[in-house]
């Protein structure tokens, strides 16, 4: 197979065409699961893994070099640190009311709407950033590692 001796080239033309059509839908589905985490099943962890899987799909279909131009490894580490810091900031902001992790918005909105439930959607977004970027960085490092002295 042509893809195995030069893994920078990616896969065949059929795979590349289907990837161009569907990878945006996969990422949109992941964002939907994250944002509706307080109304329907899902939440930050599942949505973050789905978004990481959409980027991994790009790497597998187009080869490592072309996909890393879209989302490089330094940007992945930036997003992961940003997600972790945002989560801690939301937790510390509870000191305004006197507790750690207090739900600070007093009027919590109407239930069953998208903008409700206080800090829970914000925490979901922070966790999604963190999990997605972290797992994508793990995958890129494991794939880029070539067996050094032994072939």
């Amino acid at each position, binding site marked *: 197979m042509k893809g195995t001796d030069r893994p920078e080239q990616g896969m065949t033309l059929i795979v590349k065409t289907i990837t161009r059509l569907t990878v945006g839908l996969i990422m949109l589905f992941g964002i939907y699961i994250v944002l509706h985490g307080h109304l*329907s*099943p899902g*939440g930050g*962890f599942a949505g973050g*893994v789905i978004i990481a899987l959409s980027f991994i799909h790009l790497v597998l279909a187009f080869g490592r070099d072309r996909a890393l131009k879209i989302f490089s490894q330094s940007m992945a580490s930036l997003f992961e640190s940003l997600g972790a810091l945002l989560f801690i900031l939301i937790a510390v902001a509870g000191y305004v009311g006197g507790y750690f992790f207090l739900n600070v918005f007093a009027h919590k909105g109407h239930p*069953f709407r998208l903008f409700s439930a206080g800090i829970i959607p914000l925490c979901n977004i922070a966790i999604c950033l963190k*999990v997605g970027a972290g*797992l994508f960085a*793990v995958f890129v*490092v*494991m794939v880029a*590692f070539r*067996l*050094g*002295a*032994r072939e």
Partner: protein
Amino acid sequence: MAIYLLCLILFLVGVYCILVKRNLIKIIIGLGIMEYAINLFFILVGYKMKGRAPILAEDQVIKNMVDPLPQALVLTSIVIGLAVTALIASMAIRLYEKYGTADISQIRRLKG
């Protein structure tokens, strides 16, 4: 009670794999099977007969829901299992590169 025993048998298949097999990848597979069994056991303990999923709907009054607390704990446990699997798989790649073999009875020399 029979279903708890089946779950424990699945756990013991994973323990057998870790104790007896000597290839690195088989040990990782055994660890994965143990994680599946433990997560399933938690959710089996928290199930209520003819219960419903713990999600409220807008215009219905739902009275009989399953236990949501084990589900929150197992959600955390699944993602931690993924992180541990990634870490020991990367260690396995590194061990194979250094020693040339994936057999743990021949990887004995600890340096440093």
